[in-house]
């Protein structure tokens, strides 16, 4: 519920931008009417969203597609260097991985261009904003999580290119990284819970331990990590969670857990969370693959 409200808030902010632009276009319309220009000219004079908006929405911190691409290519270099550092790659292996990574980049930018076409078609129509947003948001989520995750061509190529020994070494450091990142996200979720519902030090520590032991990382890390943690917490047996809180705290915690439940389906549809069984593979080391 809260997440939906946040999404609506974000939409509202963007629409506010449109509303702020409105006086200018309204002014143009008024002038056009005064000057007796035809209706077609008035439509042309009403840009609701500028072309730059599209890049800013998709590439956020990077600001535009060019910077976005540069950043993604740097990430590919860093990923390949890491594997080389851990596994000692041959030149052939390096080339294969680079090629695979470029495939992921191309696939992503193809989708960006598809979304851009839709944007171009509807950018003058504020009422169709929802339509374009449905295409932009998955791109944002994907970019935020990184293009070279589990389902990427790069990752699949890593599995088929590395020797069994190399793969084992690489999987080990990947598991460590995911575990360390997920631990940070769990601690963050508990600290955020603690903001609104002050917990004792012992309660915080026990809750973190429970969540580390009994929940799984998201398929993609990003801005929904908090919900991924709490949705899983809501699914834990009451006998494990309830004893950590006193009666009044438990009532407040239940309110919060109920609020997050509604997000689960959306997160699954958008590839942030896996199904319960699928999530389990995320935390376990991948079996090494033969070269």
């Amino acid at each position, binding site marked *: 519920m809260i997440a939906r409200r946040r999404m609506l808030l974000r939409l509202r902010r963007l629409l506010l931008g449109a509303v702020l632009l409105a006086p200018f276009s309204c002014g143009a319309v008024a002038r056009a009417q005064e000057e007796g220009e035809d209706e077609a000219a008035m439509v042309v004079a009403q840009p609701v969203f500028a072309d730059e908006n599209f890049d800013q929405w998709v590439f956020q911190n990077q600001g535009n597609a060019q910077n976005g691409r540069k950043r993604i290519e740097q990430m590919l270099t860093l990923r390949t260097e890491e594997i080389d550092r851990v596994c000692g790659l041959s030149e052939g292996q390096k080339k294969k991985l680079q090629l695979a990574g470029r495939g992921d980049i191309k696939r992503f930018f193809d989708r960006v261009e598809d979304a851009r076409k839709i944007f171009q078609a509807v950018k003058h129509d504020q009422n169709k904003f929802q339509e374009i947003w449905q295409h932009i948001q998955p791109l944002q989520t994907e970019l*935020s999580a990184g293009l070279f995750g589990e389902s990427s061509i790069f990752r699949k190529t890593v599995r088929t290119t590395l020797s069994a020994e190399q793969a084992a070494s690489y999987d080990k450091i990947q598991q460590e990284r995911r575990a360390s990142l997920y*631990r940070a996200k769990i601690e963050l979720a508990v600290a955020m819970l603690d903001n609104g519902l002050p917990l*004792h030090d012992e309660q915080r520590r026990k809750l973190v331990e429970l969540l580390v032991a009994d929940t799984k990382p998201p398929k993609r890390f990003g801005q929904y990590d908090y919900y991924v943690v709490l949705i899983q917490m809501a699914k834990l047996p009451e006998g494990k969670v309830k004893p950590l809180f006193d009666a009044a705290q438990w*009532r407040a915690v239940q309110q919060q857990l109920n609020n997050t439940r509604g997000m689960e389906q959306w997160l699954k549809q958008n590839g942030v969370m896996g199904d319960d069984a699928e999530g389990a593979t995320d935390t376990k080391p991948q079996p090494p693959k033969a070269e």
Partner: protein
Amino acid sequence: MKRIAVVLVACVAATSSIGAGQALKKAAPQKEAGEKKAADAEAAKPKGDDPKPAEARAEAAPAEEEVDPNIAQFIQQYQQQFQQLVKGELFFVRTICRPTKEQYQRIAATGDQAVKETVKAFAETQKKMMRGMMVAGQQSTFPDPRKIIGEALAKSVKANLSAEQAARYQDELDKRAANRKRVALLNVVARLDQDLVLTAQQREKLATALEAKWDDSWGQLELFQYGDQFQPNIPDNLVIPVLTETQQGVWRGANRNRGVFWGGAGLGFMHGVQFEEAWEEPAQAAEPAKPNEKPEEPK
């Protein structure tokens, strides 16, 4: 202008839980003295389950000051949010210290004053930011509402409860602050790892370097809630020495300071959670988190 200021003070005070009579005393004109007395009398009546008697509220609330209208609008904006924060903290005091009802009433009255101080500090900050005197993300001097409220309540706990109860509360406050710093540090390093693909050794080195030069402005937990959209403003000299050449290139090109001040209240995700305000005896209000603890006798 002055009239507007007075009206705003009245509006703000009326929306707060501080005794309505106190606020009206300042805002209402002389000819409404009769109504004012009635309002005072009304405020003095015990209200249902409200555990704070009017005299306790009045004791805690000093005379109203005239408020800059520019600040008054922010006061209205923050008031409700911080009241929620105080409610949570008072609830925490109940579970940690197990005060008697009378003791709790005195501490709760301090909470009202703490809300006022916090809101005022925030409103002042907002004003400075609007005038360009403070820049979000570049300084650690932003008021921390939890700290202000915690300190005010700790003072009141110390004054109203036994030394052992006060020490117990202070201990929890210290542990909470340490935990928040630890969580922020953990998440700063995790964020850098996502961006720079660090080795385990680099993660460790960075954690040590950042901890040694920790700046509270990096500790706004909300920074880490929104994926990679926001970054704490960490100086190059702490990060660069740990990085490889390629990583340094990425770091230098990263858009780091997003200039966001989140307000630090951090209620965000917990909005809507309601605490029972009605007084319940400790046994019902909170089953003991640590067994064998009993409510302590008043001083």
